């Protein structure tokens, strides 16, 4: 048989096809297999009960608890992934409830310039793309506190990624405020700007 190339193309194709077939078959039966058309790392939403668990027991804002929209339910239909602990997402109302608690720290995942232009009042800045687990401000943060990460809004994933990193570092209660800075600002909730950077 005449070999035109240095390698036998047919063998290459066979290897690729058969290994892919094995992979797809394996994925069907493997308990940690993934779905082809879904974002398997999509995180679920926090139910209000999960929120209340992370508020300190002597929270003085008992009145606002009754305003909680109980129709927000947690999504427990996540494929289990034991290697990555997943944070839960929260909406604006839930974010504000946590905001009023002393036990919550908001973390802005955007870069320092966006943070300086405007951020949620009292939040600290830990830019996701420069995330360093040995960062001093990170180490001084109490791991028992409730953390809420955020970035620009719906399109931005840094808040989710940052939240996952924090969970890995041992923070107990980490939530992702999906609607982010834009929504918070437009709602007229308390913000800060840094005058000098």
């Amino acid at each position: 048989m005449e070999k035109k190339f240095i390698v036998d193309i047919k063998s290459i194709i066979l290897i690729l096809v058969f290994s892919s077939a094995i992979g797809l078959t394996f994925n069907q039966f493997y308990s940690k297999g993934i779905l082809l058309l879904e974002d398997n790392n999509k995180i679920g939403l926090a139910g209000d009960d999960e929120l209340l668990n992370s508020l300190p027991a002597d929270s003085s804002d008992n009145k606002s608890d009754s305003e909680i929209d109980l129709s927000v339910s947690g999504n427990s239909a996540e494929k289990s992934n034991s290697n990555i602990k997943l944070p839960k997402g929260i909406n604006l109302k839930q974010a504000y409830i946590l905001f009023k608690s002393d036990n919550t720290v908001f973390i802005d995942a955007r870069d320092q310039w966006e943070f300086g232009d405007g951020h949620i009042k009292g939040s600290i800045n830990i830019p996701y793309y420069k995330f360093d687990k040995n960062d001093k401000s990170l180490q001084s943060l109490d791991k028992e506190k409730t953390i809420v990460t955020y970035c620009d809004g719906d399109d931005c994933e840094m808040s989710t990624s940052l939240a996952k990193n924090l969970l890995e570092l041992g923070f107990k209660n980490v939530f992702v405020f999906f609607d982010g800075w834009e929504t918070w600002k437009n709602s007229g909730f308390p913000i800060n700007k840094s005058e000098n950077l």
Partner: protein
Amino acid sequence: MKEIISNKYILMLSRVILGFIFVFAGAEKIADPAGFAGSIDNYKLFPLFLVNISAITIPWIEVTAGLLLILGVTVKENAFIISSLLLIFIFLIAISLLRGLNIDCGCYGTSSPHTAGINKIIENLIMLSLGIQLIFFGSDFLKLTGSSK
């Protein structure tokens, strides 16, 4: 120089080393496909479907090619497959560096974090050189031959 590169013991070493690296790397990713899918997604270069399909098939291609390399079966072809994968990885890491992304490369699965940086590119280039060596010279020393000819 050519005598060294085409020396049958050196070739066998290259083949076995490359094979084991890829069997190990592939196995780690097979164990945690969602994690590997997440690593691919971090590069922000591919649509979801492609990400998922790659997360399912690439690890098995790595393991199969690696295993066949170790056994000395169709060495040049498997070296070609692995070299192609390495080229793609180098390219992806280079793009990410240029875009300023600070991400885990996902090279050995989610349990061992390695940053997608210059070191990783150099590592991959070294492996690529082994692959190219094997494509050109093959490796017949200590391989499966079977009884049919």
